[in-house]
C-alpha cells in the first residue's frame, strides 16, 4: 500500500526516522492515561494489544447503524452486516495471503482454532498408536487439546526439545517424525521466550514425511508479515486481540482440500444446508465450521485492525520492533543480577527475565506502581518454565507504539525493585 503524509511518510523519510511511536500512540486512546499517577507504560502486548480508535469506531459504527443477523435477512441492515462480515474475511485472506476466502474460518481465538483442528481433523485422522508432534515451547493451548485427543484415541503426544537459548532443536524434531506421526503442531513465535521458529523448514521436514502442519500464530500475526502459501503450512491460527483487534474473535486458516474433507466441529445454525430429523447436510466452506450467530462486531473490528496494521505496514512494524528489542535487550543485559530467559537468534519483541533474589510477582507489583504494565508468572507455558528450572518470569512484551523512553522507564523501574529489595 502506498502511504501518504504524517506517519505514513515516504519510505526514505521513514528509514531515517525509522518510526515515531509517539505519533502512533495518538491513535490509541487508552495509552493516554495515568496509572498510579504515572504515565501508563504498556508492556504487556503479548497478553493482549491495545486497540486503535479505528477499531473501536468500526465496532461502534456497526452497532449504531448496521447491527442485525447475517446470511439470512432479506432486509437492508442484514445485507449491510453480511457484507461487512464477509469483507472482513477477505481482509484476513489478503492479510495472510490465503488462496481463497473460504479457507478463512472465524473462531473465538487461537485456542478455539486449535481445538477445532484437534476435534475435527484430529478425531478423524488420529487413531490408537498414532502420534502428534509438538515442541517444548508450546503455550498450554497448543498442548492440552492434543493431550485430550491423544488420551481419547490412545495416541501418543511427542515433544521436540529446545536448547538453552530457547530454540527448537530441528535435528531432534526431525528424528521424532515417523510413519505413526499424523500431525505436527508448532508455535510460530513463543509467547514466553520470543523465539521465532523456522516454520518454512519445519513444514518442509514434516511434509517430507507426509505429515500436515498446524501453526499457532497468536504471537506472530502482530509482528511478522504472514504468507501461508509461502510457509506452505496446512493450518494457521491467530487471535484478533493480539493484532490490535477485539477479544473474542480469531482465525483458523486451513487448506481448502483439508477443510473440505473434515467433519464439522460444532452443529447448529449457519453450518447446515438442509435439516430433517433423519439427516442433515452440511453447508460449504467456510460456513460448515461457523455454527451459530458469530461474533459479527468482533469480526468487523478485526477487519478494521488489519486495515490499520496494513496502513502502517508490517514490514515497518517488524523493523521498528526489532530495533526496540535490541535496545531493550542491551539495556536489560546491563542490569546486574538480571538474566534474560529466551535468547534465540531469531526473536520477536519479548523480554522475559528473572532477577536474582526477587520473585517476578514482586517485580510486577513494584513496576505497576511506576505505571509500568508487564506480565509475571508462567505465561501459560509451565513446561517452558520447567525446562529453564524456574517457577516464573517477568515479561515485557513490545508493540510498535512503545518508545525507547518506555524501555528506559522499565530499566529505572527494575532499579527501583532492586532498591526495595536491597
Amino acid at each position, binding site marked *: 500500500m502506498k502511504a501518504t503524509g504524517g506517519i505514513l511518510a515516504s519510505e526514505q523519510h521513514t528509514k531515517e526516522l525509522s518510526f515515531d511511536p509517539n505519533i502512533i500512540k495518538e491513535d490509541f486512546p487508552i495509552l493516554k492515561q495515568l496509572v498510579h499517577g504515572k504515565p501508563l507504560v504498556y508492556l504487556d502486548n503479548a497478553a493482549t494489544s491495545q486497540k486503535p480508535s479505528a477499531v473501536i469506531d468500526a465496532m461502534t459504527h456497526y452497532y449504531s447503524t448496521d447491527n442485525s443477523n447475517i446470511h439470512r435477512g432479506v432486509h437492508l441492515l442484514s445485507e449491510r452486516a453480511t457484507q461487512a462480515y464477509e469483507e472482513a474475511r477477505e481482509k484476513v485472506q489478503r492479510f495472510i495471503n490465503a488462496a481463497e476466502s473460504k479457507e478463512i474460518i472465524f473462531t473465538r481465538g487461537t485456542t478455539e482454532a486449535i481445538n477445532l483442528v484437534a476435534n475435527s481433523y484430529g478425531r478423524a485422522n488420529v487413531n490408537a498408536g498414532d502420534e502428534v508432534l509438538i515442541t517444548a515451547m508450546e503455550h498450554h493451548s497448543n498442548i492440552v487439546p492434543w493431550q485430550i485427543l491423544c488420551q481419547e484415541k490412545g495416541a501418543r503426544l511427542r515433544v521436540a526439545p529446545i536448547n538453552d537459548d530457547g530454540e527448537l532443536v530441528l535435528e531432534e524434531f526431525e528424528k521424532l517424525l515417523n510413519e505413526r506421526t499424523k500431525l505436527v503442531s508448532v508455535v510460530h513465535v513463543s509467547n514466553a521466550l520470543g523465539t521465532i521458529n523456522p516454520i518454512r523448514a519445519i513444514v518442509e521436514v514434516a511434509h517430507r514425511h507426509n505429515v500436515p502442519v498446524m501453526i499457532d500464530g497468536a504471537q506472530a500475526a502482530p509482528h511478522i508479515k504472514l504468507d501461508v502459501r509461502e510457509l506452505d503450512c496446512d493450518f494457521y491460527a491467530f487471535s484478533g486481540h493480539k493484532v490490535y483487534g477485539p477479544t473474542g474473535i480469531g482465525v483458523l486458516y486451513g487448506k481448502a482440500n483439508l477443510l473440505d474433507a473434515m467433519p464439522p466441529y460444532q452443529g447448529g445454525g449457519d453450518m447446515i444446508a438442509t435439516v430433517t430429523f433423519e439427516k442433515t447436510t452440511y453447508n460449504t466452506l467456510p460456513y460448515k465450521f461457523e455454527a451459530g450467530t458469530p461474533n459479527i462486531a468482533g469480526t468487523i473490528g478485526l477487519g478494521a485492525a488489519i486495515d490499520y496494521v496494513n496502513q502502517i505496514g508490517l514490514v515497518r512494524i517488524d523493523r521498528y520492533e526489532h530495533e526496540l528489542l535490541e535496545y531493550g535487550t542491551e539495556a536489560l543485559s546491563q542490569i546486574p543480577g538480571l538474566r534474560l530467559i529466551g535468547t534465540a537468534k531469531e526473536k520477536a519483541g519479548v523480554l522475559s527475565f528473572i532477577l536474582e533474589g526477587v520473585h517476578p*510477582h514482586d517485580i510486577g507489583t513494584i513496576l505497576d506502581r511506576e505505571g509500568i504494565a508487564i506480565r509475571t508468572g508462567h505465561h501459560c507455558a509451565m513446561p517452558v518454565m520447567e525446562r529453564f528450572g524456574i517457577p516464573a518470569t517477568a515479561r515485557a512484551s513490545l508493540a510498535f507504539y512503545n518508545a525507547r523512553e518506555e524501555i528506559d522507564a522499565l530499566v529505572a523501574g527494575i532499579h527501583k525493585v532492586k532498591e526495595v529489595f536491597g
Partner: protein
Amino acid sequence: MTDLQDLYQELILDHGRKPRNFKALDNATRSAEGYNPLCGDKVKIYVEMDGDIVKDISFEGAGCAISTASASIMTETLKGKTRAQAEELFQTFHDLVTGQKAQLDAPELGKLAVFSGVSEFPIRVKCATLSWHTLRAALNGAAEVISTE
C-alpha cells in the same frame, strides 16, 4: 512509594529472604500442598499435632516475598497454639489483608500485623493467604492440592 513501603516492610523482606521453619518435618502428623496458579507459587505445610495443639510446624516451597514471608511468620506464630486459636487467627489475618475492618485492633496478630499493607494490593491477597488456606487443608485433612483459584 508509601504504598510499596507499607507492603514491603523490612520484616517481610527479611522473612522473604530468610524464611524460618523452612524444611520438611520428619514427625509431621499432617501436611497439605497449596498452589497459586496466578504466579506459580507452591507451598507445602507440615504440622505435628500434639492432641489439639500445634506442637511443630514448617513449610517448603517457592513463592514471592509476600507468600514466603507469610508462610514463615505463620509458622512462627502458630507454634503452641490450639486448632481453634489457629482458625481464629486466620479469620483475623484474613480481615487484615482484605482490609475488611477499617481499624483492626488485634494484638493477638503480633508480627502478622506487618501484612496490613497487603490490603492496598487486592491482587496480592492470595499471596498472603496461600499458606493459611493450605494450613487449614492440612488441619482438616483435605487430600487434594489446595488452589487459590
